[in-house]
């Protein structure tokens, strides 16, 4: 709704003066009055929640950086002795930052699932979707490098496992890992560059977020029906309607966040990270943070390291190309019951991959059952569950999404988003007055 006419009236002389020079107040006012579909449900509050999360990470991160020492000998002590014990409320700042990263990922995963379910990636919002994918990748890089900073055992060994992956590339592998490490192994130079980048990337994220919101304000929000806004009566001004809804949702989110920070600050961490990094002592299980586990499982599912790395990148790549894989003209899965079913199975596959990522590769899925060996592993092993789930993960994007759009019969889609809102307050779809929009 970039054509939404500005309703801002500069009322004072100084506002009028500024408005003809830098119309920044007008810009803010237009953002606030932006016409927003009136039927957005709570899944749509996660954008606001994500902005809140980014703010928390940046503010707490800047304070942590004031007390943090990125040296091999000093990093662990500056966190564990300095920040956790001596800095006033340092335990709180770090608790917010470390758990904040997990909360950030929780929110981004819900936000992405929302986009997948309601088809938010479809025309004319492909660029908006791509920018979101860029943010997600930057977040993973930022969180990975942040996790190295406290220089505990898992920081060190996690960094070692992940950076070594780059060594799988032919020709460029060796120079690339040397560049990442700043030497021949993970060591102080690695820590230094990760700290520098960990400070930088969140601001890059903030910049992409600005583009993301810009791209949102060109076509305007989609909505749970997937039907585009047709008239002004379909919308409400963003403020106060969605400011108050988002604030309420953020407040509920903060309760969950606070439970972690105050009552189980280490629940999402690994006990190994409470011991200082020791290059001579490999932990029994090297496991990444929960939000990276599905990708770790895909990586390990494949016997060849290079192909594994490519599959990992490809898994992310699927999200990027999704707008061009989906052939259906119906946007929302509300009206695509078959696709919806495949989507729920896909979520289960992702959860299974997450679970597998935390297990030993030869661990049994069903306890006590031994079947037969196939490509290095028993069929009843974590590795095989990862393999099957990975295949489904890719098939969902590469086979099911393009084919189903052509063959399925969607439910009737309402004429306007207003229709269902009128008759069904909680946003329940109404098939009744709908002109069926059939397969594309």
């Amino acid at each position: 709704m970039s054509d939404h006419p500005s309703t801002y009236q500069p009322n004072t002389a100084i506002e009028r003066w500024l408005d003809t020079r830098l119309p920044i107040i007008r810009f803010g006012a237009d953002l606030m009055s932006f016409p927003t579909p009136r039927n957005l449900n709570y899944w749509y509050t996660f954008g606001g929640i994500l902005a809140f999360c980014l703010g928390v990470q940046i503010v707490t991160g800047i304070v942590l950086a004031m007390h943090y020492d990125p040296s091999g000998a000093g990093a662990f002590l500056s966190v564990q002795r300095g920040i956790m014990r001596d800095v006033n409320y340092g335990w709180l700042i770090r608790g917010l930052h470390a758990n904040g990263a997990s909360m950030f990922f929780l929110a981004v995963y819900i936000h992405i699932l929302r986009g997948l379910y309601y088809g938010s990636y479809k025309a004319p919002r492909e660029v908006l979707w791509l920018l979101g994918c860029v943010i997600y990748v930057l977040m993973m890089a930022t969180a990975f490098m942040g996790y190295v900073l406290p220089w505990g055992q898992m920081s060190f060994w996690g960094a070692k496992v992940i950076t070594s992956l780059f060594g799988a590339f032919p020709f460029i592998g060796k120079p690339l890992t040397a560049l990442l490490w700043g030497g021949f192994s993970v060591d102080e130079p690695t820590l230094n560059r990760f700290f520098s980048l960990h400070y930088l990337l969140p601001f890059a994220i903030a910049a992409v977020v600005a583009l993301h919101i810009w791209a949102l304000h060109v076509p305007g929000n989609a909505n749970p029906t997937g039907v585009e806004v047709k008239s002004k009566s379909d919308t409400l001004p963003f403020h106060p309607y969605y400011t108050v809804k988002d604030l309420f949702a953020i407040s509920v989110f903060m309760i969950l966040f606070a439970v972690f920070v105050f009552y189980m600050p280490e629940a999402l961490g690994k006990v190994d990270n409470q011991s200082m990094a020791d290059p001579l002592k490999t932990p029994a299980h090297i496991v990444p943070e929960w939000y990276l586990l599905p990708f770790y499982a895909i990586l390990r599912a494949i016997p060849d390291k290079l192909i594994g790395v490519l599959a990992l990148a490809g898994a992310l790549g699927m999200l990027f190309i999704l707008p061009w894989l989906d052939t259906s003209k119906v946007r929302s899965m509300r009206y695509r019951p078959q696709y919806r079913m495949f989507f729920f199975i896909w979520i289960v596959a992702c959860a299974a991959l997450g679970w597998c990522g935390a297990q030993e590769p030869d661990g049994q899925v069903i306890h006590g059952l031994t079947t037969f060996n196939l490509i290095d592993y028993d069929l009843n092993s974590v590795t095989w569950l990862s393999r099957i789930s990975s295949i489904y993960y890719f098939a969902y994007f590469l086979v099911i999404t393009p084919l189903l759009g052509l063959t399925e019969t969607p439910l009737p889609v309402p004429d306007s988003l207003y229709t269902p809102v009128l008759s069904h307050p909680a946003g329940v779809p109404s098939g009744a007055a709908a002109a069926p929009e059939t397969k594309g």
Partner: protein
Amino acid sequence: MLRKILAAATFAGLVAVAGPSLAGSTQAPLKEVHWSFDGPFGKYDQAQLQRGFKVYKEVCSACHSLNEIAFRNLGDPGGPFWNPKYKNSNDNPVVKAIAKDYQIADIDSDSGDAIKRPGTSADYFPSPFANTAAARSANGGAVPPDMSLLAAAREGGPDYIYSVVTGDGTDAPAGLTIPDGKYYDPWMPGDVSAYYKGDPAKTPVGGFIAMPPPLIADRVTYDDGTKATVEQEGKDVAAFLAWASDPKMEERKSLGLSVMIFLFVLTGILYGSYRKIWSNAGH
């Protein structure tokens, strides 16, 4: 540098070979203790922390360092010797007296000579060994881990520490050959199958530990008259180490309570505002 790399590479190779056996690591179910600091309202029992500190000081500190803790921390709120009269824990007389008993390495500012001087509240606990190599050679090749974060760095925390140091009172299972300088401990995660002659299905759980069982009854004399059984000493030192790992727990939980109350009220107000504003959304 090159030697370091080579050592690391050799070690990594060894680990890769030994890898599968790591996966076979076992451990007996931990002895579960009901701690005063469990739960969202739990607090440290100050008398227990004082007893636990005594066990640490008189027993464990011979081998285990406590690098991250300064003497003044003992007098911090929630700590073993916190006394509301001394808001600044550096002034706490108990803390000062404890610190004075330790000899701290320093440099004489006039002569530049390396000297030892009595500790002050601001000093950190000195390590029992000059360096890791010395610690390793004095302990049959194993380094006693620093205790500042031990309770946080092990699955099970204080339950684990309590289980490991109190043992099960029985001798090592028959058929198990215990390597020189090692002890069998069912709670130490490990794999003893290579040392066990007998039914593989009955391989003892747990592993070997290079630490001799550190506690015996009456190893310390408690100032508050508590009977110093092995269980009591074990619980007290585990509680002390739980505090050492998480000295801000009480501050955290009490601030958490206020924050939760605030957030619930805020959420209620926001929900009310949301209902009010949307009631005139009209359509």
